[in-house]
Each structure stands twice: as C-alpha cells, then as structure tokens.
C-alpha cells in the first residue's frame, strides 16, 4: 500500500525519509516523523482494534495520550510492549505492531459475537450469575480470565536499562505548548533553575498542528526561535519525550523520559527510560486540554474521530483521515477541522446544534463553502468496520429536507475541551466546574503550583501566551529571581478571533434511546455506554464512585481521559443534579502508564539491597564457602570440600572445633562504643542486668528488652574502662539496637553524658575456638599472657599480632576454649592469614555459621530471632535471674503483668528425640500425644534442631508451654510425612553441662 491518504505536502513529516513498518503482519510505508497512528491513517487504515468487552471494531479517535482504542502489542520477543498506544508510538524502520485483544486477528475475532449478547452482559452482570452450581464457579472464572487482559507480557528478559535521577529546580514547567514555552522563557531569563518537560518528541504542544501565527511568525518558526533561546540558558533544561506522570506530596513531580523507543531496534543502546524525581520550588502546569467526544449511537465506529485529531493528522502529519466528512460540533473547534479538511480537498458537512452565531471560525467555514446544518445533532452513526453514514435529528428545530441521513467516511466530533487537570488534582486541588466553558478547571491551589493556558481553561492562544509569561515571572519571583527589567518577554501578538459559546450536549435522545437504541459509548476502552450509567443508577449505585466501579468507567489504560467528564455529566443528568454536585472521581497517578522497569531502576539483582561484605568475603569465596543471607550480610555458612554435602561439611567443621581448633569470621556482629561518665547508668537502664560491678577488662552477657518486656537483642559487652564500654549486638539487630539506644538517650535521657559510636565496620573479628585455640594464639601474639589466671574466661586483653593492634576476648559461643580477636578491618585478612598459618599444625579449620549454630545448640545457647520470636521474655528462657531486682530498666514493668508473669507460658527447653537419628523439623509443632484430629492442642514448637556430631545423636531446642515444669516428659512432634516423632523434654544444655571445656586451664 502506498499512503493513499498522504497529503501531497505540509506537515512536519520528512517526506524524503520513508519508513517501512508492519501492522497486523501487513507491510506499510510511512514517513519519518509519523506516529504509528498517523502512518496508518496515511494508509487509509482506520479499523485497528477490538474493544475490551463486546469486541466491537474500533478506530483511532485521538492523536495523543488520550487515545482509548488503538492499543497494540508493539514488537515481539524481548522488546515487546503490551498495550502501546498507536498515537504515541513514533514510527521507525521495521516497526511491527499487532492489535491486542483479538484472536486470531481483528478481522476474524472469535469473540466478536459478544456484541450480539451485549444486552445480557451489561454492567455488573457477573455479580448476578455464575453462582450455580457452586462448584462450577472456577470453570466460569477460567473462561472469564481467558477473555481478560489486552496485551501479553514479554516472555523473555528485558534487555533494556532503566535509570533514575533526582532533580531539583526553582521552576518546573509541565507542557511545552505555547503556555509552557512562554513560561520557560520568562522564567529562564530571570536566571532561575528551570526544567521544562513535555511528553511529545519535540516542544510546541498544540502549535505543532496549529495554523496560527505568533507575533507575525508562523507557529513552527516561533517554536524554533524560542527553543533556541532556551538552549542558550545554562540553568534551563528541556526534556522532550518526558511525561510528568505523578504530582506527589511536597512538590515532587515524577516524570518518565523515553530515550530509545523511537529508534529502530538495532539502533537501541544505553538507557531506555529515565525516571526523574523532580523536586521543584514552584510548578507551572501548562498541560493543555483534551477534546471531548460527543455521545451518540455507534459513536465508536472506526472513522469517528476528534476534531483536534483530524487537525493534527492533517497539519502535523500530512495525512487525510477522510474524504467525505461530517463534522459534529457543539462549539467552534469543529470548524477548524472542517476548514482543514476542506482545504485539503475533502467534502465537508458541519452539524451544529447551535443557532447560527456568526463567530469567526464559523464565518470562515461558511465563506469556504462548507455546508452547515444548524440546530441539528447526530442521532447515530452507521457502518461496519468503518463509518459509512450518519442519521441526524433536529435540535430545537426541524431538519432541513434531505438531511436525515448523510453518508461519510469520516465523522468528526468536537464536544468541547477538558483541561488536563490531572496533575493539578493530584497535587491535592479540587477542580471546579465552570458552566460557561463547560469544563472542570483548576481552583484553589494546595501545593505551590499554578495552571496556565488551556490547562487552566484559558483556551485562546493569546491567553496561553500571556498566562505563561505571567506564571514564569511569578514563579521565579517566588523563588527570589527577580525579573530583570526589560528581559521578560512581552506576550506575542496573535490573531484575535471571536468565538461563540459552547452548547454542551452530554448524550443524544432520551434514556430509552440510550437503553434501546444503538449503544452510545462513554468509555470506549471498557465499553461503558450511557445505558450502563442508567442501569447503575436504577440499581442504586448513585455515587460517581459507585458508577465508576460498577461500570468500570475510567478504569482503562487511558484512565477515562476522553470519557469521564461525559460520564459524570450523563450521571448528573440521570440523577437530576448538577455536574458540580456529581463531582469527579479521584485523579491519581499515573497520568499515563509507566513501565515497571522505569520505576524499579537499577536496584535489582545484587543491587536490589546492599550486599554487606565482611573483610573476608573474597577469602570465603575463594575457599568455596556457601553463603547465607543474614540481614544485608552474606555470611559463610559452611565450606564444603569436594564430595561433601552440607551435613558432612558441618560435621567436619564442628568436630574440628571440639577436637582441635576452628576459625570463624564473626565480623558481622554489631559493635557499639559506649563512652561517657554516665555509661553505667545508661546500660543499667537499657539492660535488665546490673553493670556497676563489671570490672574493666571483663565481659558480661546482656539481654535487651523492649518496653513490652520481650527480648529484643542480646550480646556480650566489654568494660574497656571505668566510663567506656563496648556493646555487641546480633548481626541482624545491630542497626536497630544502635538507633534504639540513641533514641532513648536523646529523647528520654538527654541529661545522661554518654556517646554512642558504631564501630561495627572498623573492627573485623575472628573467633579461634577449640582446645588448641590458646596454642594458636600464643604462636602469633606474644604480648598477651594467655594463662588461665592472667586471662580468665569472660576477660579480654589488648595486644598486637604482627604489630597489628588486637583486642582479644575470652568468651565462648561453642562451649570450647575460645577467643574472639578484634582487629582493624583493613588488616583483618592479614591477621586471619597469620592465624591460619599458625593453626596449620593443629589442622585449623575454618567453620561457618551452620557449625556455629550446631555448636551453640549443643550448649543450649539461644539465637535471638530463632529461639525467640518477639513473644519471649527472659523468664521464658529461664533467665529470669538476669533481671535485677535492684533497679528499673526498659521493659521490666511489663514482666509483672498477669499474663506475662504467668509461670505457664511457653518456655525454652531441650528435646531429645527417642530416635537419635531423627532430626526433628525446625518449626515442628509439639503435641502431648500423636493426633490425626483436625484440631489439636498445641504445646509449643521446635526452634532449633540438629544432628550433633559430637554426641552422635539428634538434639533440639524448643519452647513448650509450662516446659520448665515438664522435664523428662514425653512429647510428640508430627512429621511432614504424617508420621510422629517422640521426644523427651530435657535441659537445653546437651554437652558439657558443667562448662569444663570453656573453663579449661
């Protein structure tokens, strides 16, 4: 096909640059500068889609983002985009698009029969049926789902890159039509930082299709001059192809910049889309207006188009949407389309419900020889896959003879204008209905913004320009950028033209006409017609919000940009109330849909959340570690040797610690430096136990409670000096504990002289554990005396290893003789290497967190978060003795509440399975006896469970109701396979209960 409807000249398309593309698998030619929609129109293609519910043939109605019908699956494979709007897709070589929602294709759509059942599937029909027999609902639903959705999700990974940026400016201007451009120049000249965004490929807005002149210049020339000037201003940034899609709180405007979608696939590289989070001191909304369709029977036929779209296709794209046109207009805008059509050789008849006004445009139409039928409306259109004619009806007068029906291949609608108030409304503003202009306009400002031009209901070019200049100057002034006198542009002169007022018509004919005649569509995409609104009201769904939800009006990908206002007006009519009383639905982001990829940005995969690495991370990797996620950290879980599974590796690592010596990277523990004269008082208030008596050089275990008395965290604390402590926390709890302590300090106890400093990252930690631990350390550390008397259990010392400052703690989480070595992290690897080398003769074995867990469970040491769950108190752990009676501390009062103090709560105990080879499932429930009943009384659950390599049997920790009183009793643990395991309640300390090993000489 050869662009049979391409005009011989005119438009902004590049005639020397033909572009080959494919629509529904057929090849077509278009021109560079076309959109997919304009190229299709240039090729005479109007039937491009099927509607969502009734699968009616649909054509292109609009020329911009408001298009409800022409949705395509753009491309296939990795680059595909579901539901792309043909009116927004810039044509590129090789483009492939298919209509959505039609199988096998729009011509032979199998679901097209739906339109014949339409009266049985009116709004909300599914709430009334599919209920019998009850068991069939899933089958019905399967069918409903099969029909659901428009485009399809890509089945391959997205090859594109998405960036995000924060931006700040004094004045953000949304929309680069005449109003926005004028505002940008005015603001830019003051020196303010300005960002101007526009969703079209180039600035100009409606001027791109206008035949107007500005200050004597044709629009195109004016745009060029103004944008050239903006380009010279260093503090002005112009972003084309950028849609402001959300107006968030505190003047944050989110915008999406599209960088590569207009390029042929093989030329795409780099960033596809960039999300701009623009924090502006002032916002100027110059977003223009969308034209409204008129509501009459079959107003959805392909070939029924908005007047502004017709002008756009002719003037911007050089494509003629029809040769025999009927223009149905209730205001003067339709005449512009009539003139443009006529000028390009089409036959035109105008149908206008108003009486003859003699306004500028209508006079020009008359002079051009266009036939105008006044005081008439279109009752309905006729046609199949394209409009072929219309039936007229008089409006307050009889129709002139012979005009009852007219034939046409294009039906142009001009129903008035809806200012694009979406962003204004999102900013919190409540739009106000203006009867005179028959539209909602912005009213009181809530955030620091202002609407100008058509977005403000100021529809003339002169108003757009003067409003823009004024807004630009004012917004800059509010940011303290004065208009340096003489620099502000005087608004440019435009043609003055008289306009006669709009005569709003919201639907044609009576209610009966709507319910019985051809469907009058309000929301094209969701097939909502006037009769659906009547039905909703009849059934009691009267609020505009009920109507929206009952009929799905405005739910589509266009969010009702064309239909909503007509729908509200129709509803108002049915309810006999004003449009003001009826109100709008809530405007919400997104103004137009935005790719999930853009909102996600690059924070995916390894960058989804920070991967925190210890000083040994690379070493762990090199030594085959399997990692486990704890908080943001990657911790080495175990180091399997070739042929070993996890159990084997863990058993080997455990036994190495029990029999000789192991080495553990323990750096992830949180470490907080607590310093100041009131440190003891502070710790006494934070922890249940007493800190006064702890001597410098000694360590003590502490549990931390929240105000509800539940265990928050635990750790071993060091008293470095009289007024100086080092507090340690769990890996996952470090940040929480730090802010918890800081919070109490600042908000509740500001009188306490204590400083907290996190030193988690400064110090790397290596745990040397096992009977040979001392020997290893003695080899590398000469300036510390490791003898028992000099360096007892729960003591610590400072010294050096190869000249590196180290602090060594004699503490034990494994029950063995064990030392924790703290060293500056930059030298951690070095010290670790020395320890490995020194331990070689003892077979020193690096062990991971899994072995650590087994070793500690053998000793009955808890892990906060595993053996506790936010509902456990120290009493429940059998650690009630830690709660000092001598003082108050956070959470203490909660422990004496009746339920919390009850001796019959769940308590921590050990479990010995009767079958020593059976490792109980962690999270297993505990019953008093085997039960296959649906409901049984649960006694508690298994919190930790392992095969103990040293005991050569399974062991577990559990919390059990009244557990401390139930020692030696048998309980039952149901297994996932339906069997039951028996176990005996015992002390949680399974190994070396006297603690002889950690206290060795």
């Amino acid at each position, binding site marked *: 096909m050869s662009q049979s409807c391409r005009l011989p000249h005119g438009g902004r398309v590049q005639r020397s640059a033909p572009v080959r593309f494919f629509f529904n698998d057929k090849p077509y030619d278009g021109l560079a500068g076309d959109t997919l929609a304009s190229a299709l129109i240039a090729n005479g293609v109007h039937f491009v889609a099927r509607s969502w519910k009734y699968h009616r043939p649909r054509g292109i109605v609009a020329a911009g983002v408001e298009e409800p019908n022409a949705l395509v699956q753009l491309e296939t494979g990795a680059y595909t985009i579901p539901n792309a709007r043909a009116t927004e897709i810039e044509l590129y070589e090789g483009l492939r698009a298919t209509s959505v929602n039609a199988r096998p294709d729009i011509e032979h759509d199998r679901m097209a029969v739906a339109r014949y059942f339409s009266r049985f599937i009116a709004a909300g029909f599914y709430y009334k049926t599919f209920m019998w027999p009850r068991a069939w609902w899933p089958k019905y639903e399967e069918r409903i789902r099969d029909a659901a959705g428009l485009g399809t999700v890509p089945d391959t990974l997205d090859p594109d890159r998405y960036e995000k940026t924060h931006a700040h400016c004094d004045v953000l201007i949304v929309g680069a039509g005449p109003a926005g451009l004028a505002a940008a120049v005015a603001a830019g000249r003051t020196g303010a930082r300005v960002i101007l965004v526009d969703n079209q490929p180039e600035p100009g807005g409606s001027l791109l299709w206008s035949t107007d002149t500005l200050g004597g210049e044709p629009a195109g020339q004016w745009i060029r001059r103004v944008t050239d000037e903006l380009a010279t201003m260093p503090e002005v*940034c112009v972003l084309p192809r950028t849609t402001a899609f959300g107006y968030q709180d505190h003047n944050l405007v989110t915008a999406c910049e599209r960088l590569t979608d207009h390029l042929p696939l093989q030329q795409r590289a780099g960033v596809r889309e960039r999300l701009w989070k623009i924090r502006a001191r002032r916002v100027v909304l110059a977003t223009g207006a969308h034209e409204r369709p008129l509501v009459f029977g079959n107003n959805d036929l392909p070939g029924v188009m908005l007047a502004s779209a017709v002008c756009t296709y002719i003037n911007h794209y050089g494509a003629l949407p029809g040769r025999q046109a009927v223009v149905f207009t209730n205001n003067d805008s339709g005449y512009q389309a009539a003139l443009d059509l006529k000028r390009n050789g089409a036959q035109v008849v105008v149908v206008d419900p108003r009486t003859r006004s003699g306004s500028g445009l209508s006079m020009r139409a008359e002079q051009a020889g266009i036939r105008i039928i006044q005081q008439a409306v279109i009752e309905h259109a006729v046609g199949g896959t394209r409009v072929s004619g219309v039936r007229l009806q008089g409006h307050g007068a009889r129709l002139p003879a012979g005009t009852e029906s007219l034939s046409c291949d294009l039906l142009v609608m001009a129903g008035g204008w809806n200012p694009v108030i979406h962003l204004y409304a999102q900013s919190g503003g409540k739009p106000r209905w203006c009867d005179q202009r028959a539209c909602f306009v912005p009213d009181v400002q809530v955030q620091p913004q202002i609407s100008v031009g058509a977005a403000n209901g100021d529809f003339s070019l002169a108003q757009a320009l003067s409003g823009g200049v004024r807004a630009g100057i004012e917004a800059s002034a509010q940011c303290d950028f004065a208009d340096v006198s003489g620099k502000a542009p005087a608004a440019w002169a435009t043609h003055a033209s008289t306009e006669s007022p709009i005569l709003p018509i919201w639907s044609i004919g009576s209610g009966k006409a709507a319910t019985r005649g051809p469907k009058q569509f309000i929301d094209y995409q969701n097939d909502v017609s006037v009769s659906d609104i009547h039905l909703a009201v009849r059934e009691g769904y009267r609020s505009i919000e009920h109507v929206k939800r009952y009929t799905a009006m405005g739910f589509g990908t266009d969010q009702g940009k064309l239909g909503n206002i007509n729908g509200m007006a129709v509803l108002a009519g049915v309810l006999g109330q004003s449009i003001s009383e009826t109100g709008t639905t809530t405007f919400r982001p997104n103004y137009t849909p935005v790719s999930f990829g853009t909102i996600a940005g690059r924070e995916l995969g390894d960058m989804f959340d920070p991967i925190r690495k210890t000083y040994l991370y690379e070493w762990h990797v090199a030594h085959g570690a399997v990692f486990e996620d704890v908080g943001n950290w990657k911790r080495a879980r175990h180091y399997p040797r070739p042929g070993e599974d996890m159990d084997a590796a863990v058993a080997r690592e455990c036994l190495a610690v029990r029999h000789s010596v192991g080495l553990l990277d323990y750096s992830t523990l949180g470490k907080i430096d607590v310093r100041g004269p009131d440190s003891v008082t502070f710790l006494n208030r934070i922890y249940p136990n007493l800190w006064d008596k702890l001597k410098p050089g000694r360590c003590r275990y502490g549990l931390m409670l929240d105000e509800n008395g539940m265990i928050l965290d635990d750790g071993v604390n060091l008293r470095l000096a009289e007024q100086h402590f080092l507090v340690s926390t769990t890996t996952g709890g470090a940040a929480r504990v730090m802010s918890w302590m800081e919070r109490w300090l600042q908000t509740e106890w500001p009188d306490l002289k204590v400083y907290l*400093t996190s030193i988690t990252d400064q110090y790397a930690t290596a745990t040397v554990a096992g009977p040979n631990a001392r020997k290893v350390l003695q080899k590398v550390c000469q300036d510390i005396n490791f003898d028992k008397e000099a360096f007892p259990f729960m003591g610590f010392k400072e010294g050096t290893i190869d000249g590196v400052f180290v602090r060594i703690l004699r503490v034990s989480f494994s029950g063995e003789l064990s030392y924790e070595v703290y060293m500056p*992290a930059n030298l951690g690897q070095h010290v670790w290497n020395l320890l490995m080398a020194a331990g070689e003769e003892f077979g020193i074995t690096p062990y991971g967190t899994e072995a650590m867990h087994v070793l500690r469970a053998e000793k009955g040491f808890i892990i906060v978060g595993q053996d506790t769950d936010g509902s456990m108190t120290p009493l429940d752990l059998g650690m009630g003795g830690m709660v000092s009676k001598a003082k108050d501390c956070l959470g203490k009062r909660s422990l004496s509440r009746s339920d919390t103090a009850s001796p019959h709560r769940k308590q921590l105990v050990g479990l010995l399975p009767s079958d020593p080879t059976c490792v109980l499932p962690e999270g297993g429930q505990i019953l008093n006896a085997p039960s296959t009943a649906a409901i049984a009384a649960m006694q508690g659950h298994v919190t930790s469970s392992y095969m103990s390599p040293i005991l050569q049997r399974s062991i577990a920790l559990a919390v059990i109701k009244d557990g401390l009183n139930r020692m030696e009793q048998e309980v039952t643990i149901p297994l996932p396979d339906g069997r039951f395991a028996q176990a005996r309640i015992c002390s949680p300390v399974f190994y070396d209960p006297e603690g002889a090993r950690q206290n060795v000489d």
Partner: protein
Amino acid sequence: MWTELDQETPLVGLGHPPGGFTHGQLGSVLLAELPFVELTNLRGEPGSPGFLAAVLDSIGSELPTTPNTVATSADCCAMWLAPNEWLLRSTGAQPTDLARRLDAALGRQFFAATDQSSGYSVIRLSGPHARAVLAKGSPLDLHPRAFGVGQCAQTLHFKTSVLLRRLDLAGQEAWEVIVRRSFADYAVRIMLDAMEEYLGPGVAPGSSSH
C-alpha cells in the same frame, strides 16, 4: 611487623588495587578510591569550656560548628556530622594517630574519639558528569547554588548512607564520598553502573545540568 602491603581495602573484590581502585574517564567521570585514609570520629560538646580549643591544639584544626560545613587545616579536614559529632580526615599521606592525640589532649573531658580508618572507605568522583552520577542515588540538591565547596552532607546513595564533600580539583568539579566499609562494595558497584552511560557509546542523556 605488618607492612603497607598487608592492608586491604573493602574494594578488593573489584580486582586487587594496590594504589586504590580507579575507573572511568577524566573528561567524563572518574571514580578513584583513596585507600587507607586515616579517619576519626569525634564526639564532644562544642559549648563545653575548652573543648574546641583543646581540639584545635591537638590536631591543628578548627571544628566547624555550622551544620554541613568543613574546616580544613594543613593536614586535617574536619567535617560536621552532628551538633556534637565530626569526622576528622587526615589529608596527609601518613597516619597521624588522630584518635590517640585527641585522647591525650581531651583527657577527662566528656568526649569520644574513635578510630574509623578501617570503618569507612573514601571514594572520589570527579569530572563533568560526577554530579549526574551522584544525583541518581542521592535525593540531595547538588547544584553549586545549594551545595558548594566547603560544604559536606550526610545523605543517601541508593540504599546506603554516605557522607559527601564537595571538592574543587583545580577548577574541576569533584566529590568525596565516604561510605561504611561493609557497604563500600555495594556503593561503588552501583556507582560504577551509574557511570556506564557516560563512559560508553549510547544515547546522550537529556541534560547534565542538574
């Protein structure tokens, strides 16, 4: 006795960098790690008698008391972190034992000086696109009208905290980014990724004037 060569920065995972890791292009954006910078966190009450003077005495630098500003002396740069907290960064090549000197000088005052030389990593980002790279991850306004030389600020870089300081490298725009050790690898990787569009071929971004 350990030597310089035994030290490791948190960026070892990016390929062993004896002199610190670098990546990028001079004319566009260049990321350089400044390894093993001596850093000390200092807490104290600026209003308490003698405190500021004692600090000045021991390290030769004023402590800035205006939020988000920096005071620099011959071999030390003091960055405001909070009304009673500073990060001291030596600017010389050799460690100067800041923490110990402060401990000695402040004696029995209410203060806390903690060595953080291993706790943080210092990165420098320079070049015409440096600001655009930072703006991707930081919600802060980095425009020279809002954030000039002599200022510093703690903020976010994607999902981690950083301390930013604006530098003037012989007229060229540059930033110092100080980040906690365990987050440094993440912070630098996401920064390197952010730099990509300014280094390789690709479609030019909208504008870099932000």
